[in-house]
């Protein structure tokens, strides 16, 4: 039996009603979800599906209105526990500008370990290592505002890496980036998972990103409506469309071409089509 890193048990989260009369709003409704150690899970859903709120509960920023959240065996039930949990799972947010604290790249990466009270020489080592992992070591003395969006997000990821957390939750890290930046960040995320073995929870609304995960969890209206491998999920094109979600373009192309099996990535798509054409095309 694999070990669980994050356990959500019948979790509900309701935003409180405002004083001016705006009614409370239930973003997540009775959700149970286990994330195992070393897994790469994509949480897919369109705007307002509750996926961001779910992410914030996994990191104890929000406490569930009902139900329980357990991270690495620690039950989240107080502020102090929250701090303990954030040493185990880090988080990267959507807007790269609003999560960088320092005016120099390496200082920003050092911020997390500094807060944890790590020895200065050890911080230096971790910062260098983290920056090398995300491929930003050469730019370590630059000012963050002079970097591209993709580079800023990689700095943010390095910031979590330097804290040496077991897991990392990324809340739509590529939503504000251009295609190049998106690819850079996605490659980095995949590397973290495959090479370093960090548990990754990627919140996204891009199908092509979800395809890269080991497991896809689909959310709609605050509930989990599907949970399985990318191939299982994207084979159900009709079902996804009912919940205003799409399938990756390669999958859609192959479906329209009338292929039986579910194709996920452009590479697979090319291979399939060329094999159908008798292996002539390359």
């Amino acid at each position, binding site marked *: 039996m694999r070990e669980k890193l994050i356990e959500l048990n019948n979790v509900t989260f309701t935003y409180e009603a405002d004083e001016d009369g705006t009614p409370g709003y239930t973003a997540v409704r009775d959700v149970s979800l286990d994330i195992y150690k070393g897994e790469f899970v994509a949480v897919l859903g369109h705007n307002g599906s509750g996926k961001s709120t779910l992410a914030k509960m996994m*990191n104890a*920023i929000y406490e569930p209105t009902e139900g329980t959240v357990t991270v690495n065996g620690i039950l989240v039930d107080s502020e102090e526990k929250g701090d303990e949990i954030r040493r185990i799972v880090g988080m990267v947010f959507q807007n790269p500008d609003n999560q960088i604290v320092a*005016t120099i790249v*390496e200082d920003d990466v050092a911020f*997390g370990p500094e807060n*944890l009270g790590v020895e200065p020489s050890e911080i230096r080592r971790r910062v260098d290592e983290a920056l090398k992992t995300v491929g930003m070591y050469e730019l370590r003395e630059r000012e963050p505002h002079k970097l591209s969006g993709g580079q800023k997000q990689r700095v943010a990821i390095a910031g979590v890496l330097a804290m040496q957390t077991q897991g990392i939750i990324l809340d739509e890290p590529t939503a504000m980036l251009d295609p190049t930046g998106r690819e850079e960040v996605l490659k980095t995320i995949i590397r973290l998972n495959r090479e370093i073995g960090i548990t990754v929870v990627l919140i996204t609304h891009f199908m092509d990103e979800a395809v890269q995960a080991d497991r896809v969890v689909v959310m709609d209206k605050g509930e989990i409506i599907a949970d399985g491998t990318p191939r299982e999920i994207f084979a159900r094109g009709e079902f996804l469309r009912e919940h205003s979600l799409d399938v990756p373009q390669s999958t859609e192309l192959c479906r329209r071409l009338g292929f039986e099996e579910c194709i996920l990535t452009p590479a697979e798509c090319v291979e399939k089509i060329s094999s159908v054409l008798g292996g002539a095309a390359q």
Partner: protein
Amino acid sequence: MIRDITFGQYYPGKSVLHRMDPRMKLVLTFAMIVAVFICHNFYALALMVVFAVSAVLLSRVPLRMILKSIKPILIILAFTAVLNIFYTKGGATYFEWWKISVTEKGVNTAIFTVIRIIVLVVISSLLTYTTTPTMLTDAIERLLSPLKIFHIKVHTLAMMMTLALRFIPTLIEEIERIMNAQKARGADLESGGLIHRAKALVPIFIPLMVSSFRRAYELAFAMTCRCYTGGNGRTRMKQMKLRAADFIALLLCLAVIAGIIVLNIFFTRII
């Protein structure tokens, strides 16, 4: 336009000045700024100029960067020079016409003041060129840490300063974006009288305020996620240590200040 501000812009390097303890740099910069003001004749001022020039050479910051820091104060320089030339009277008269006269003392004062301001700006911008803002706020935090006994939250103040510095470029970009967005909707920001223009800025600043609050909120989340709980129990990656170079710099600065005092005593006062 506003993006050109050189203040607080770090110029990466590995010179002696870059590697000095920021606390010592900060204290010495203040000391030397005071020293510029106690100069009372050209000999003392010349010593100060020699000091500033050698500091620039030691820092290996290119001359063009130094000139860039002087550029914004050119108008102030011209203004002070003109005022001093025409309003300070004394000594031989070089030029006289109607009620306007240019005297020896006026010219001397003008030159003196201009050099003094330039030296002032060069010394202080050298501090920001060779020290990252983070290091600088760190240094301030440590220098002010004795104030803790008066229950002043020194760490919080330093953190606020770092964040303010960090967000200046971000907010400038934001202002430009909002201005363009409003112009695209037909906002007229350039014409009309003062009141009209001030009113035209309202639709710029309201979105700016709103988005700043949103940023602050998100930043607080992000900082919480990285286990920030205030100054207690925090360590720092970049340790500050006084080294031989710092003490040599201290001695040099003390020597320059002593030199200025001696020159002040032995030569006549000009200003």
